[in-house]
């Protein structure tokens, strides 16, 4: 069993960090994990992709994910800018940071009836918990919920660990709250 995830974000939003935190959280349940960005020019604000592979066996594949099981869109403006459905499968799941309802999103992305779409207003959660529009903690929480790969407490512990070394208690608490709210508030459409 292998789960392949593709993240769409913009340079400077912390999307790559989010992929890393998610991989780390999945590791604790004894899985094999990978997290890596698409290596290209690194420019703030430019569209970027990052990838995760999570499996219960050794991961030998060392190339980008082209047929994702889950697509995470950290910045909704990317839906118009890049092909977020590229390589998607009939059962690919989309998770989007947006204030739109899942129904509106389905139309906007143009998903197939068999593809599930989940929405989470991660930017709003971030503004309320961290005070800055950094959607990733909430997205990691939501991804944990929809992927069923890792439970909330494990993710929270990992967010605490990842942020604990560099940031103040206020920032850590904000990220923990954002992660928890992402997990709880994600909606399916």
């Amino acid at each position, binding site marked *: 069993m292998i789960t392949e995830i593709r993240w769409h974000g913009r340079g400077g939003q912390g999307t790559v960090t989010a992929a*890393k935190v998610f*991989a*780390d959280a999945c*590791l604790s349940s004894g*899985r*094999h*994990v*990978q*997290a*890596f*960005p698409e*290596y290209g020019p690194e420019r703030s604000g430019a569209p970027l992709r990052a990838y995760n592979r999570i499996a219960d066996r050794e*991961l*030998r*594949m*060392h*190339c*980008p994910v*082209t047929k994702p099981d889950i697509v995470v869109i950290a910045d909704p403006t990317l839906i118009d800018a890049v092909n977020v459905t590229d390589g998607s499968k009939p059962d690919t799941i989309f998770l989007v940071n947006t204030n739109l309802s899942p129904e509106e999103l389905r139309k906007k992305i143009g998903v197939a009836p068999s593809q599930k779409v989940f929405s989470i207003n991660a930017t709003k959660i971030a503004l309320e918990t961290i005070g800055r529009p950094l959607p990733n903690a909430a997205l990691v929480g939501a991804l944990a919920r929809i992927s069923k790969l890792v439970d909330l407490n494990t993710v929270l512990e990992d967010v605490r660990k990842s942020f604990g070394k560099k940031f103040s208690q206020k920032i850590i608490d904000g990220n923990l709250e954002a992660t928890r709210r992402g997990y709880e508030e994600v909606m399916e459409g």
Partner: protein
Amino acid sequence: MAKVVAVTGNEAVANALRQVEPDVCAAYPITPQTDLMQRFSAFVSDGKVKTELILVESEHSAMSACVGAAAGGGRVVTATSSQGLALMWEILFIAAGMHLPIIMPVVNRALSAPLNIHGDHSDAMGARDSGWIQLWSENAQEAYDNTIQAFRIGEAPEVRLPVMVCMDGFIISHSIERVEYLEDEEVKKFVGEYRPVNPLLDVEHPVSYGPLILPDLYMEYKRLQHEIIWNRVKPVVLQVAEEFYKLSGRRYGLFEAYRLDDAEIAMVILNSAAGTAKDVVDDMRNRGIRAGLLKPRLFRPFPYEEVSQALRHLKAVAVLDRADSFGAYGPLFTEIASSLYPYKDRPVLINKIYGLGGRDFMPEDAEKVFLELQDIATTGKVKSIKQYITVRE
């Protein structure tokens, strides 16, 4: 008791260096290696290791500092990539010629021009004739394990040679993967205390390093250098791998033979792309195609005899090079061809150049190669011996 972590290749190798705690480290930044030495220098600043860190002004100086420190009697490391390795070129030969067991992770990257910071094997292949031992690593785990084993191999009393540990730039150096770390004490015990041989700083027993040797003795010196790397390294690599297996449960050899025994066709491929190709070997097998793979680990000295025994029963073999020797076949191809030349019955060989400057190597690319091999095995016809793949037409 092993500790399981999710780390980048650079992070894993920096941690191996921390666990070994060498006496001296010379460092100069170059992408994608920078992050490795940055992490190691943080261990120095934070007092996690007592290593003396020398921040130099170029890679030429980095390797020169390593030569001085190793001749002085220290256990010495540095790390580099691409242009940095190219700039060391002159001193690489000096390190090997003086039999100084310097350990150097090489985070493989393309060479300019045009400028490109991404992963290919041009840098280390350019250094293949320098007299250094070369170990190649598929993933972060192998880079970590090879780095630890490199100290034992290079420092073995019958060897005493410098060792490069290669891993793919970005694809491994900057990607997070699951890695099992050994305990600090286990690593310290495994590499053991460093025993310098003829150190310059032993003033009671003065010695000379780097004297002029005229035509009357130069060849004898070089023959000895050849005999040491040619005859003595392989048994040490295998012995160290055996001890490392007992410690870690992870097996290493001169190369990895993957589903080769009953194969008809196979791919020979180094480093991270070998992982992708192994998954494709399994797909081929599921489709009834008897595919296999050989992934070299010890590239210098090259184990010609052992490699030929693993490949000679095959019908067709593709050698994939992530570096080119312009105007010639790829560097890995020529080694495989040389190893098989002595045998009358041998596979048809083709050479594919792939993945230069970080170009992705996808499962579909490996699949195409296997299907071409299958065709060659059936018809015996080769369209072209050397071909660039993963290119836009």
